[in-house]
């Protein structure tokens, strides 16, 4: 699935963005399948806004986003659900786990929301790789932010997808954990032939990016 931005401009930030140049806002740009995209964005440049527009959480923007050749504004509720189950996976900046479910239940929910891509043993294997096995049975709300971040990453990797979108996914991880997570993410994306779109404040070398853009 290719993703195309056509003259995208969030309405609330329109005036500000028109006054400065950007690789993304107010221009047309296409992302090929399986591309690894890094979007570098200092605070206040609309990073989370972009992610939310792309994930269809808000539609107060001008211009258009196309998945293949379909404008996403025209998606129906059930089509959107199918896309989120099959095509787009996401790690939110604010993670959005269910605090009352255990870490395992949070991941399991996403695994069985559609026909499972992986058997449930994969949860343990990924958790072991990221060093969070010991908190799997703990309520997510009681986990540290770094632990929650890793749970959210596993949750995003347990489902089928052709694009993985991540908004500052490593903000609370130390370098060793970042390396492990990046390894796992890289492997899972390659396995699916999926693209990766990651936003962060700084330049990084966690992945071999096919494209690095400034917001």
């Amino acid at each position: 699935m290719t993703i195309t931005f056509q003259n995208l401009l969030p309405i609330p930030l329109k005036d500000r963005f028109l006054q400065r140049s950007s690789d993304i806002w107010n221009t047309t740009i296409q992302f090929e399948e399986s591309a690894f995209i890094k979007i570098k964005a200092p605070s206040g440049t609309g990073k989370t806004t972009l992610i939310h527009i792309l994930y269809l959480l808000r539609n107060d923007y001008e211009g258009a986003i196309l998945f293949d050749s379909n404008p996403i504004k025209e998606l129906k509720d059930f089509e959107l659900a199918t896309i989120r189950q099959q095509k787009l996976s996401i790690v939110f900046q604010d993670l959005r786990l269910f605090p009352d479910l255990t870490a395992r239940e949070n991941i399991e929910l996403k695994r069985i929301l559609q026909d499972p891509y992986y058997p449930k043993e994969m949860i343990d294997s990924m958790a072991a790789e990221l060093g969070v096995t010991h908190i799997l049975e703990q309520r997510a709300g009681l986990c540290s932010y770094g632990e929650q971040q890793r749970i959210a990453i596993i949750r995003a990797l347990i489902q089928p997808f052709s694009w993985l979108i991540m908004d500052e996914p490593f903000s609370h991880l130390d370098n060793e954990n970042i390396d492990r997570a990046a390894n796992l993410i890289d492997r899972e994306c390659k396995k699916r032939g999926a693209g990766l779109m990651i936003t962060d404040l700084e330049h990084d070398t966690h992945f071999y990016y096919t494209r690095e853009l400034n917001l």
Partner: protein
Amino acid sequence: MEGLNLLLKKLIRTASGRKRFVLAVIGLSVAMLLILAAVQIQADYNELLVSKSNQDSIANFLVVNKSLTDQNLGNTALSDSDINDLKKQPFVESIGLLSPSLFKASIQSNSDRFPFYTDIAFESVPDSFIDVAGKDWQWTENSPYIPLIVPNMFLDFYNFQFSFSQNLPQLTQQVVKMILFKVNIYGKNGMISLQGKVVGFSDRISSLLVPEEFMRWSNARFGKDQQTKPSRLIIKTKDPGNPQLTKYLHSKQLVTDAEKTRFSRYRQVVDIVVSVSWLSGAVMLAFALLVFTLFIQLTIASSKEEIGLLIILGASPYQLQKFLMRQFFPINLLIICISVIVISLLQFYTHGLLQSQGIFINVYPSIFTLLTAAILLIVIWWVNRVTIRSYIKKVN
């Protein structure tokens, strides 16, 4: 699928507002019982009206005439428009005119050992209105005797009053049917004497009946010239207890045997019971559905964030609807099943109770009751579905 439902159950708590839920369930149950009972009572009553085993053949035939007052003395004939109007009424199946004899007549015993004599008059009706017309019920000019049908009442009057006062023997129906007697008719050219015989007893019409052929012949031959209009007629009706019929007769100042329309009183009572049950059932159903809807709304509202996040994570509205339907609908199904069972038990019990009094109603609940239950189930299902749908949409 089970795993997902378990997780959803953890997230979307249906436990909040228990009290409201219990209220809604009680309300729905009572409403359901009232409505189904109304349908069942109506069905039972209709069955009582039409079923063979309960049919009261006398009651289905009503002899109708104008009510006699000081104002219409000598003017009680029914006009053609009266008759036609009556024919058009939905409760009238058919109408027969009663023709009176237009001559003077008497009957008299053939034997001196058993003397009797009385002045009489005859009436005739179309044969289809007579319940005891057999092969003897025919008359031609060559017939050896005139067949007569006598009201049972006459014989009772004779046996239990007249015979005592006159020191005469009591007579059974069989004996009476064997007696030939003289029928004297007084015409313009004097009296002629014919033979007569009772061929049947009836409760339907309280007149001495003769075959229509004889009535035509004798009226033509002996009657005064005037053509009289009929002043009595007989109605065949499915339901003499129909309040409409009583009301109609009353409005046209017609009267009939009040005893025969006595059912109309009961019928009115049944009608009132049924409509009260209906109405209160419908009102309760509306309120119970409202409370149930509120309960669904409350549940969705109290899990608003969870539902929102589920949708963000890719749960389809359909998945959530299906899950919520599974939470809310089974209790409704249960309520309806229990209501149907209760009504069935009541029907069974009533059947037994009425049977001992010679009234027969079906031992099973009527098909209409089951249909109503099915329809209500669909209505509730639909209300559940629409509520869940619209509220999920609102959260989304």
